[in-house]
């Protein structure tokens, strides 16, 4: 708390000297940003993401701007890009794990979840790819299949899938598991997982839950 003279709670005398208060102002800036991001301290990075993957993901998202929300809502929104960790995989299926920080548990609402992955196909072939959403129910040790999508892929490139409410619920619990089941050996080998700039990712749009939801009628 800076000493303030006069009746104003936040005004400082006009002769406020920046340099002698520099450390204090820098601390104030850090605290202000962390408060607004609902973080208690700055994150320490566990697995830095390559610049190529970052650029590719941002380019993909800019290309397919999510629908703007119908209602004009003041609450702060986040767009979170989570790159896949490849889990249990074999020739018939590939499991992808996505981790969402504690911000998405509890006080936020997941508005939309999109899955993006890259396929490298030989020319003039069409393959079928099944994508399953698996969740871990409370007190279960095995994952439960909650929904499945079938995608026809007929050219090399990025594919986007809008995932339904089960995936949104999984994201808001902090962890999403997807299982990719190709219908042929060729489709399996066409799925690109580990190339830096072509890692599959999920883009989730979340909104901070207001203290109380006030709806304007």
């Amino acid at each position: 708390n800076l000493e303030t003279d006069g009746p104003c709670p936040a005004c400082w005398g006009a002769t406020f000297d920046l340099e002698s208060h520099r450390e204090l102002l820098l601390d104030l800036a850090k605290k202000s940003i962390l408060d607004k991001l609902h973080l208690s301290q700055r994150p320490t990075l566990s697995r830095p993401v390559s610049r190529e993957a970052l650029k590719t993901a941002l380019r993909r998202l800019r290309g397919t701007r999510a629908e703007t929300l119908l209602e004009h809502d003041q609450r702060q929104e986040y767009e979170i890009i989570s790159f896949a960790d490849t889990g249990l995989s074999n020739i018939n299926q590939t499991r992808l794990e996505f981790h969402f920080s504690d911000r998405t548990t509890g006080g936020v609402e997941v508005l939309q979840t999109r899955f993006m992955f890259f396929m490298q196909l030989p020319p003039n072939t069409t393959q079928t790819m099944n994508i399953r959403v698996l969740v871990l129910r409370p007190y279960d040790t095995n994952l439960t299949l909650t929904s499945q999508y079938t995608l026809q892929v007929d050219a090399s490139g990025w594919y986007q899938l809008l995932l339904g409410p089960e995936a949104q619920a999984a994201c808001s619990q902090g962890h999403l598991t997807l299982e990719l089941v190709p219908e042929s050996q060729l489709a399996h080998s066409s799925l690109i997982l580990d190339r830096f700039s072509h890692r599959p990712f999920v883009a989730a749009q979340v909104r901070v839950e207001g203290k109380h939801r006030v709806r304007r009628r």
Partner: protein
Amino acid sequence: GINCQGLSRMCCRQEFFVDFREIGWHDWIIQPEGYAMNFCTGQCPLHVAGMPGISASFHTAVLNLLKANTDAGTAGRGSCCVPTSRRPLSLLYYDRDSNIVKTDIPDMVVETCGCS
């Protein structure tokens, strides 16, 4: 709005840029390079009380003269130098799971200051 220069004592906006590299946050904040933590500082004497911090019109000047010449007791005391317009800060950063997060923090950057 009025930016603080030199030893101005009147209500003005003090610019203060926080470079994320200087505070060691450039590894987890991808964009932007820093944050303009501007703040309002300075005095609000009676004759500029209620001024929104933008270029005063002729009518404002006349009104201020009237206020300054009326009995100080009649006009409201304690006019303060406060933000009168602000804009959001867009951030792109890594969270602790190395997810990339993009968000706009509303009303984070002070654009103009004025007297309440």
